């Protein structure tokens, strides 16, 4: 288990180094940082001095090492646009995106998994057909269309829910949370539905496919032959054997959701990292872009590693590499 963990962590570190290299290359070579930072009146010597001060005359590897070194400490420099510390900017925005993505993920699981089981178990019923058709619609509609439709119906026509923003937030340390105020919770509803709709249908279809597969297996038939009620057979024995791919998918998709959140955040003017990134792109604010890239890939890598570790927890066969073979005196 420890060897397994170490191996996973080594892989993760390697991937992060590679991503850092990409971010560094963007930072260093997409336009001249010095040009972006100085104003038009700066003299040639001013520029040379700044270049020297920023260490841009050092060797490539030295610069890369320095970039990685400061990135590890959370230092991505100063935003070109508003002269603020990049990490502070991102940290301010991160809770908004994170809360949105978490709510969307939870929604996708608590709706997607039961629907998937139902459509698999009651294959031949009208309800299952309805859910299946609904899921095709869910997969096909682009997320911004869903967002706009939701705003149109629930904010404009019915006036039930806010159309933009995060509502009031409560600060817990550096984290600003929208979970603890009514307006914060109300503001979460539409964006999280819009973000999770695709996810719900994805989870549902995956669970359905896996269930159909598992329901054919011998141990399901044997569980029924043991006289267990169908509900236990379906929701305990079959579902648990379907969870592996669902965990993988959900894990991987959290990264995707953060990326998708870019669209949702734009539609709902949600003050998260996605919106920050879009603004950074408009102003060619490279330190912010580099920090966003690093952070998103860090989350990707972190989640992947966690997913692998969760595997080992859910499936006992992966827990210990050496299976305890017993009863050899009688069995062999």
């Amino acid at each position, binding site marked *: 288990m420890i060897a397994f963990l170490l191996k996973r962590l080594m892989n993760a570190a390697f991937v992060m180094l590679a991503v850092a290299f990409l971010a560094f290359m963007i930072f260093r070579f997409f336009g001249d940082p010095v040009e972006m930072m100085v104003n038009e009146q700066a003299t040639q010597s001013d520029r040379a001095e700044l270049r020297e001060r920023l260490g841009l005359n050092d060797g490539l590897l030295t610069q890369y090492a320095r970039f990685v070194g400061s990135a590890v400490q959370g230092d991505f420099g100063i935003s070109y646009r508003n002269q603020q510390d990049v990490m502070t900017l991102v940290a301010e925005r991160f809770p908004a995106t994170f809360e949105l993505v978490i709510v969307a993920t939870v929604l996708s699981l608590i709706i997607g998994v039961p629907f998937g089981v139902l459509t698999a178990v009651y294959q031949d019923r009208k309800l299952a057909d309805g859910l299946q058709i609904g899921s095709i619609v869910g997969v096909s509609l682009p997320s911004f269309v869903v967002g706009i439709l939701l705003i149109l119906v629930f904010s404009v026509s019915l006036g039930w829910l806010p159309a933009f923003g995060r509502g009031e937030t409560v600060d817990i340390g550096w984290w600003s949370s929208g979970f603890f105020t009514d307006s914060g919770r109300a503001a979460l509803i539409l964006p999280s539905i819009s973000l999770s709709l695709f996810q719900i249908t994805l989870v549902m279809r995956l669970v359905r496919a896996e269930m159909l597969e598992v329901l054919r297996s011998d*141990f399901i038939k044997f569980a029924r032959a043991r006289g267990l009620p169908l509900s236990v057979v379906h929701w305990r024995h079959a579902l648990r054997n379907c969870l592996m791919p669902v965990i993988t998918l959900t894990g991987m998709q959290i990264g995707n959701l953060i990326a998708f959140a870019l669209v949702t955040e734009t539609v709902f003017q949600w003050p998260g990292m996605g919106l920050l990134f879009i603004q950074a792109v408009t102003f060619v604010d490279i330190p912010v872009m580099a920090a966003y890239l690093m952070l998103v890939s860090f989350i990707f890598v972190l989640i992947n590693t966690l997913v692998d570790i969760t595997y080992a927890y859910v499936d006992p066969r992966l827990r210990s590499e050496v299976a305890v073979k*017993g009863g050899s005196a009688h069995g062999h």
Partner: protein
Amino acid sequence: MSDKVLEVEELRVEFPTRHGVLTAVDGVSLSIDRGEILGVVGESGAGKSMTGMAILGLLEPPGRIAAGRISLSGERIDQLTENELRQYRGRRIGAIFQDPLTSLNPLFTVGKQLVETIRQHLPLSASDARRRAIELLTEVGIPAPEARVDHYPHQFSGGMRQRVVIALALCAEPELIIADEPTTALDVSIQAQITGLLKRLCKERGMAVMLVTHDMGVIAETADRVAVMYAGRLTEVGNVQAMVRAPRHPYTVGLMGAIPSLTGDVQELSQIPGNMPRLNAIPAGCAFNPRCARRIDKCTVDIPTVSGSGVACWAVEDEVRT
């Protein structure tokens, strides 16, 4: 009559398909007494497993029981609903399936699966059920059951897993055990242990056992009586010793001829020409007639039948009469 645990009368199992209705089991009548092992033997697709599944009420849809009756200790069980039938499965009819590697849920310890089954059927507390689980593991010959009860299926060898499966079938002291190819997936040396175990449990507990297999050797060692199936129909039913010594139906004769003997002279094993017909192409009359060396005119017209014991063959009947 009171000793008959299982009675199957004129059972007919059908599969409606797009290309018409297939009959997988046709007019099968069987009975098993307390403490008796009935071997059901036949080639793959002869309908022997299907008969077992029909008794358990676990036919895969669209398969269904189209005719006949199945009684357990005198009570008719073939028309029960899924919920009623569930009270029988595991409680009064235990099942053992072919592949012990896939019969157990890999994600639960064997103890958990045992306790779950025991508590489904018996009003026991969790700790009593666990104690019973350990007793059952001891009874089926798992060494160190106190430790093994918390192991996962993948930590057991194939033979040990089949013992666990048997323990699961025994959870609620069923009257009848349906063992569907219980030894097919195992090594020969372990086969003997498992059949020995089944035999001991059957005699000690007075259970009725239906042993479904394609292995005539296993039948000869284990069963008291044997029913031979071919293309969904019974061909011969009778005492196992008598049938091994003097098979009567031409198909049974062929099956016996295909068993290698350790003691007799070295001779070429005989083989039955041709294949068993597909379910959608069962010939008129006796299903075996195209492959039969003793075919007479009547064989291609009328279906011979057998119930209780005897042989379903016009040629044999002819011979007896003359």
